[in-house]
């Protein structure tokens, strides 16, 4: 397999949430969220009650994937940043460590300069956390010590129940 499955534990998840909360406050943005490159929402900070974050996550990942495709056609490894400007809201999308996508939605209470500055800072912190997550799941995979794995006892009946 080209990638490892992403396995998130409580402690790292809390640290990611903290980092996003800090970015949300310091960048004066509306909503901050983190997406796996495959389109799965990892965590968010800010008011997402009236936003369809699942769809946002999937479309953002599609956007990054398409931009990456364009980059490679131009001989670039990747474009690490995308910015869309709207009449009311703007969206700043950046790639962190080739693995996750950091998305900041902001309006005129913030500015692109401030967002870029804060995103840069937050990216460093997030990168460290994800390095740790990768190391941890790699260790557990090698040692086959997944505590409390939901899959250990999974039966055909469990799966059938999902489709009732």
């Amino acid at each position, binding site marked *: 397999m*080209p990638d490892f499955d992403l396995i*998130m534990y409580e402690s790292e998840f809390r640290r990611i949430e903290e980092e996003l909360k800090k970015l949300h406050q310091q960048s004066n943005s509306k909503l901050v969220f983190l997406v*796996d490159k495959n389109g799965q929402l990892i965590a968010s900070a800010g008011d997402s009650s009236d936003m369809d974050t699942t769809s946002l996550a999937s479309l953002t990942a599609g956007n990054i994937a398409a931009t990456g*495709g364009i980059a490679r056609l131009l001989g670039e490894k990747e474009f690490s940043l995308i910015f869309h400007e709207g009449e009311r809201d703007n969206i700043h999308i950046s790639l962190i460590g080739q693995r996750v996508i950091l998305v900041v939605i902001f309006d005129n209470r913030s500015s692109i300069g401030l967002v870029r500055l804060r995103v840069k800072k937050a990216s460093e912190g997030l990168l460290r956390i994800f390095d740790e997550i990768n190391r941890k799941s790699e260790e557990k995979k090698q040692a086959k010590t997944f505590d409390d794995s939901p899959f250990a006892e999974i039966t055909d009946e469990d799966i059938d129940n*999902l489709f009732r």
Partner: protein
Amino acid sequence: MSFINYSSREINCKIVYYGPGLCGKTTNLQFIYRRTNPEQKGKLISLATETERTLFFDFLPLALGEIKGFRVRFHLYTVPGQVFYAASRKLILKGVDGVVFVADSQLERMDANMESIDDLKINLGEQGYELDKLPFIIQYNKRDLANIIPLEELNREINPNGVTWYEAVATKGPGVFETLKGVAKMVLMELKKNY
């Protein structure tokens, strides 16, 4: 590549519907969308052209229920089937956990089926996957039409390795949920093997 979150107790898996243009990939997702309870589904997103041909992908998030206290979510994607969208197709396969190949049963679409399954193998290969090692099933769609190829022939041509297959009529529903359930089972069993 699944995402298992022990903190929020969620498992997320990505399933891609692949196949030649107009074979019924989007129709599969539309039927699943119509027949799923509102609380179990998100929005069905279609990035399509004005003539309703898939341009980039369709996306349907499903949260079907829980297994051992973990909420199981499947993210269903389709690829654009038309030949010239090859670059986009490749991108959708990134991080895939399971593949459904939707074959068009009509006689005149046999070449398109073969071309598409070769394209699938090549595109998976470029992402570092092998089709034989991935949860993979085949759906023979449009079984209600008159000019269809017999199943034995379809299996001989498209399915030499004898993977699980289903007959379907995606416009009306038969076989659609069976296919989804079939691939979901394989994906979860694959996770069981690894964790």
